[in-house]
């Protein structure tokens, strides 16, 4: 079923007319209200009036995550705070996350996009949605929640964690749709199994999984273990949150980008050149309906390609393929974004600890395990074991406090971390995604 049949199945010509009208309004607003965007126009020697067709968007400079950080916390907001009704933030470098705001209309737009997404993923009004995305500053929980209510389904706001209790709820309440990160979904199945509850006997029909990369193999694994149809959802808080693009359960072959709200481009991450449909590169978004936090040519760092072929589900919106990687060194650990530089900042802020480290990511069962190996330098070394263990604990705690991710900290000998051409290898990702 299709939630917004008029827009989701709109012929391309009509869609492009709407896109251009909305783009113009966004550019005018950005230019008038956000000093950063005005400077971007000026740097390119343009004014919004110079953008006369959709292709002209390519003449504008890109916006990067660093630009958002430079304008921390509210510098990118295009409306006064009295019009902002919601603030979310994604994990960033120590003490400096990326902050995004929403007007009442933005929240409503987002809820509609999530309602579209949930329905594309198989949900209807009659469903009970077990929403195990984390609630809070992270956009996952509240995004799915508002979408479920908009759709008219019943939502269980269970959030992440407390897994055994979740299993009891799943057994007793009989939810039919599961929304979670794919790794947490597998973890739920394992815990259910330990508790003697067969996931396959529960009432789940569809699972809507996102916020971290997952492969076709993992889809097969989840569908087999959980006894449901697993579909992929995509989004990022800078653009709006989950609900930027959604896979339809009919085809399960790429995610429809809601192009009446976001204009996607694929670029060569090295040169910035725009690539044609089908070619793989970095995904770039321009929001065209957002009021509080418009983004113009925002570089997501996600690597994928676009597929314009018609889809069996009837939606006309272009599909992005599953994200295959990143054009930077960001890791996603159990749904949390982690940059090696953040770990480095945590270490640098500690006395005596030198930032000689390596991150090792493994997947044990279905959960991501982050191990932070820290070389023991002479300044941090002690002849007492308890002092060294205390240091391990302190690093673990600081990483948890600053990044919100649990890591196992392991002290290692100075030469233990492999160096290639004198440069330390900072990340070893052993996950098979």
């Amino acid at each position, binding site marked *: 079923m299709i939630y917004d049949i008029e827009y989701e199945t709109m012929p391309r010509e009509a869609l492009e007319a709407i896109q251009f009208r909305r783009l113009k309004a966004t550019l005018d607003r950005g230019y008038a209200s956000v000093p950063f965007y005005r400077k971007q126009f000026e740097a390119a020697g343009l004014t919004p009036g110079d953008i006369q067709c959709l292709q002209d968007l390519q003449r504008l400079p890109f916006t990067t995550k660093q630009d958002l950080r430079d304008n921390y916390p509210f510098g990118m907001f295009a409306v006064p705070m009295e019009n902002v009704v919601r603030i979310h933030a994604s994990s960033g470098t120590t003490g400096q996350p990326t902050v995004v705001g929403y007007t009442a209309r933005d929240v409503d737009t987002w809820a509609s996009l999530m309602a579209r997404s949930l329905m594309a993923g198989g949900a209807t009004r009659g469903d009970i949605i077990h929403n195990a995305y984390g609630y809070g500053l992270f956009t996952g929980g509240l995004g799915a929640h508002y979408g479920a209510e908009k759709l008219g389904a019943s939502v269980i706001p269970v959030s992440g964690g407390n897994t055994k209790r979740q299993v009891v709820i799943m057994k007793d309440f009989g939810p039919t749709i599961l929304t979670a990160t794919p790794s947490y979904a597998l973890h739920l199945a394992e815990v259910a199994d330990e508790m003697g509850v067969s996931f396959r006997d529960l009432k789940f029909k569809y699972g809507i999984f996102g916020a971290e990369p997952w492969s076709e193999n993992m889809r097969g694994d989840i569908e087999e273990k959980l006894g449901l149809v697993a579909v992929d959802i995509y989004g990022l808080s800078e653009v709006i949150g989950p609900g930027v693009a959604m896979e339809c359960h009919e085809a399960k072959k790429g995610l429809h980008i809601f192009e009446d709200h976001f204009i996607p481009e694929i670029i060569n991450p090295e040169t910035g050149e725009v690539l044609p449909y089908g070619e793989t590169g970095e995904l770039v978004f321009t929001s065209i309906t957002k009021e509080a936090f418009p983004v113009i040519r925002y570089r997501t760092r996600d690597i994928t390609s676009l597929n314009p072929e018609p889809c069996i589900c009837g939606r006309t919106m272009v599909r992005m393929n599953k994200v295959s990687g990143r054009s930077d060194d960001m890791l996603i650990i159990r749904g949390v974004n982690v940059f090696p530089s953040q770990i480095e900042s945590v270490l640098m802020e500690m006395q005596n600890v030198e930032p000689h480290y390596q991150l090792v990511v493994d997947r044990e069962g279905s959960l991501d395990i982050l191990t932070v190996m820290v070389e023991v330098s002479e300044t941090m*070394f*002690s*002849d*007492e*074991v308890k002092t*060294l263990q205390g240091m391990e604990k302190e690093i673990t705690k600081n990483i948890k406090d600053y990044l919100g991710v649990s890591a196992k900290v392991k*002290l*290692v*000998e100075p030469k233990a971390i492999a160096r290639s051409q004198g440069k330390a290898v900072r990340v070893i990702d052993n996950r098979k995604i």
Partner: protein
Amino acid sequence: MRAEQISVFLENKAGRLCEVTGILAEAQVNIRALALADTSDFGVLRLIVDDTEKAKEALKKAGFTVGKTNVLAVEVPDRPGGLYDILNLLQARGINVEYMYAFVQQSGSNAVMIFRFDNTDEALKVIQEKGLRVIDGKTLYGM
């Protein structure tokens, strides 16, 4: 009156101890006493050697993290209650033992114990007041 001990950080994996002793052998350093404290991930090897500087240099050159700590080598009467008398005395003065281990050689009819106290100065005072012999580094390395 203090003795120098070197400590070496080791990952808890096969062959590490062997490598350290190999490096010391190569450098012609003789180990006088040693103790190993370990966790599931790592260990700290503590050594009294006949040439502290030489041992430290050799290990550092091989890439190990090496520390130097002052410890006390105390003669402990080799009879029942010998160690108890000393510890009891120190406890009464609020001094704690971080760790201790035995020296290989005896000194006359006494055993020699290596102590690392939380307050080395105070411990030294108490032990000497009691009339116990503390063996200085130079003598110890050559014993």
